[in-house]
C-alpha cells in the first residue's frame, strides 16, 4: 500500500460509495419477501456504479499514480460487490449447483458469467500484487476491459428489463464519452499544431 501511496482521500472516495452500495443492496432487500433473490439483484446493480467509474478511469488518458490508485480501489470494491452478487446467485439462488446454473442460464450466459468472475478476480489480484508495467498484463487488462462491459451490456440492456436498463445505458454512455475523450487526447497528441486551431476556408 505504501508504495502506491494510496491517500486517505483516495480511499475514502472509493470506500464510502462501496459501503453505502453494499448496505443498500443487502438491507434494501429486506423490503422483499424473497430476500436472497432481491439481494442477488440489488448487489449486481450496486456493482455497476463503481465498475463504471473504474472503467472510465481505465479508458481516460493520463496515467498518474493518483488515478491508478483510485482506479484500483474502485475496481476492487466493484469486484467485492460483484462477489456478493455471485454468492447470492450461485450459492443461494442456484443452491451451489453448477449444473443448475448452466441449466437455468444456458451454457453461453453461465459460461460467460463464470469467466467474468474468474478473470476479474485474477485481474484484481494481479493489480494488487504486480506493480511492474508488464505487457502481458496490459493486454490482459485491455481485453478484460472490453469483455467485462460487453457482458454487462448484454445483461443490463439486452436480457433484463427494468431499473437495470438505466444502469446499462449509463455505463454505455460513460464508456462512449470516455472513449471520445481518449480519442480526442490521442488526436491532439498526434496533431498538436491544428488540434486546437479552428479550421478556416
Amino acid at each position, binding site marked *: 500500500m505504501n508504495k502506491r501511496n494510496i491517500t486517505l482521500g483516495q480511499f475514502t472516495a472509493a470506500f464510502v460509495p462501496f*459501503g453505502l452500495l453494499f448496505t443498500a443492496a443487502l438491507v434494501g432487500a429486506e423490503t422483499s*419477501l424473497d430476500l436472497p433473490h432481491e439481494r442477488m439483484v440489488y448487489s449486481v446493480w450496486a456493482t455497476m456504479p463503481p465498475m463504471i467509474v473504474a472503467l472510465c478511469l481505465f479508458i481516460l488518458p493520463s496515467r498518474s499514480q493518483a488515478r491508478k490508485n483510485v482506479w484500483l480501489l474502485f475496481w476492487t470494491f466493484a469486484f467485492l460487490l460483484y462477489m456478493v452478487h455471485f454468492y447470492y446467485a450461485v450459492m443461494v439462488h442456484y443452491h451451489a449447483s453448477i449444473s443448475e446454473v448452466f441449466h437455468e442460464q444456458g451454457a453461453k450466459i453461465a459460461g460467460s458469467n463464470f469467466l467474468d468472475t474468474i478473470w476479474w478476480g485474477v485481474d484484481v489480484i494481479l493489480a494488487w500484487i504486480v506493480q511492474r508495467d508488464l505487457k502481458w498484463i496490459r493486454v490482459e487488462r485491455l481485453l478484460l476491459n472490453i469483455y467485462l462491459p460487453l457482458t454487462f451490456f448484454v445483461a443490463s440492456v439486452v436480457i433484463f428489463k427494468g431499473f437495470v436498463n438505466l444502469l446499462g445505458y449509463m455505463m454505455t454512455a460513460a464508456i462512449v464519452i470516455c472513449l471520445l475523450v481518449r480519442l480526442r487526447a490521442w488526436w491532439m497528441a498526434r496533431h498538436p499544431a491544428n488540434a486546437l486551431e479552428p479550421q478556416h476556408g
Partner: protein
Amino acid sequence: MTLRQKLGRGAMIAADLVTAALVVATLLLVFQESKWVHPKSMNAEDSFRFGTTGTELMPLPVFVALPVLFPDQFQPGGPEAGDWIQQYGFIRGQAGVNDGLPSGFFLSNHRPMSGSPSPVQFVGINCSLCHQSMIRRSDSDPGVLMRGMGNTSLDFIAWVDGFKTAVLDKHRMTPNAIFAAYEKQSGQKLSPADKLMVWLWLVQARKTLENNEPKFDAPYSGADLRNSEFMPNGPSRTQPFRNLVRNIMDRPALLDHGYCKLPALFEQQFRTWGQFDGSVHDKLTRSVLAAIAVGATMQNLSMPEISNNVEQSIQYTLDLQAPKFATVFPDMKLDPNKVARGAKVYLTYCDSCHGHPGDNGTWVRGAQEDVVIPYQKLGVDGERVSFRYYETLGDALVNWFPPGQSLRPRREDIRPGPMGRTRGYICVPITSAYAHAPYLHNGSVPTLAALINLKPRPNLYYRGDNNYDPVDAGLIVPDNPDAKRYFRFDTSIPGNSNKGHDYPWTYKGPGWNEAQLQDLLEYLKTL
C-alpha cells in the same frame, strides 16, 4: 497541516468510520437473520401435525386480524352460523397445543415462498389441514379426531377466496387496521420490525393477487363463497391439478372441473402409485407436488428443516391406520356372522381390484391392483382425468425442476408418461374403509352403503359439516340446507357425477342381492 486540511482529514476519517460501521452492521444483520429461524427437530407425527412444509401464508398478526376485520368474508353464513373455524370446516385447536391454532396451521419464521428468515412469525398450512378430520354423529357430539382421514368439512378453496378478497380490499385491509386489530385481539404490542414485515407482506401479497386477477379472475366474496354455482369445489374437495397447471405452467385452468376429494392417507406403504388416477409414483414427489400446489417452492422445499418435515410426514403416513370402527363406535357391535359372509362377498367381487388384508399387517395384492382402469369402463366421472394439459403437465412438472435438483421427479414417476397413459382411476388397497367417506374420487357418494349400491345414491344434497352415520358408514347428507350444511352438491354437473363403480351390482339391477350387500358392508367396516 492547516486547520482546513485537518478538518478535511477528520471528515474523511469520520466518513470512513461511519461507512465501516454500516458495513459491519449490515454483516451483523445478515448473520442475525439466521437466528430468526428456529428449526425444530420433530418426530414424524409432529412434523405431520405442526411442521412447516414451505407453505407459509401470512404473518401471524394478519391471521389473527383477518376474521375481525372481515366478518363478511370469514363468516359468510352470518354470525349465527358460527365463527370462521366452524364456517369453513377447520378443526378447532386446543389451548396450549400448537399455540392454539386450528389443526393444520403451523407457525414458522420463514417468509412465504423464499423461506427467507423473518423476524415476525408466519402462519402456514401443512398436511394435517386436509388429511385430518372429525367424526361426529350429531351436532352436539364432541367427535373423534381422525388423523389421516380426508377432512370432510373443510371448504378450503372458499376460504382462500375469502382471504384473497380481504387482501385485495385496499380500504379496509390497511397496515394500521391490522396492527390495531391484532393488538386488541392478542393484547400484545407489535415491534417496528413486526410492523415492517406485515406491511411488506401486505404490499407483496396484494401485488401478486392483483397481477393474477386478469388471469385467474377476481376471487368470490361474501355469500357467494357458499354458492356452489361459483365455488364448485365445496367442502372436502380441492383441485390440486388446477393449481399445478397455474403454478407450474402459468395457465388459467379455468375450465378445469377435476374436483377431487381430500384423500385419506392411511397405510401409504401399500400404495405404489399416488393420486386417484395413479399419476404419481414416488412418495416424496407426491408430497412435494401437493406442497407446490398450495404455494411451496423449489427454493424453500430444499431447506433442511422443510425437506425434513416433508420426509417425516411421509414416514408418518406409511403405517398410519384409522382407529378400528369398533373403537370409534363402541355401541355399534358388528355381527361376526355377517362379517364372515361379507368377507366371502368381498373376495368374490372386490378382491381382484383391491386385494385384502393378510397376516401381521400385510396386504395381499389383488390381481388388478395398481392397474389404471379407464374411467369409461368404470362409468365414473372423467373430468379429473380429462382436463386441458393432462397430457403435457407431466413433462412440464419434470422440467420445472432443473437437472440435478434433488426434488426433480423422474419422468417415469409421472403419468401420463412412459409408465402409461390411460385416463382412468387406479385400483388401490382398501384400508380403514369407513374413514374414506365421502366416496369415489370426487366425493360424490356420501356412504359406503351407497357406494356398494346397497342403498341408492343421492343425486342432490347438501354438504358442509356433515355428521357421520355408522350404520351406512358415511356422511349424513340432508336434502335441504341449514347453517352447517350449505353447499348444494348437484351430481348432474360436470365433475360431480356419482355414477359408475357399480360393483358388485347396480342398485336393484341384475344380480342385486340386498342380504349379501349388507354382509359386505359389515365386512368393509372391519377393514
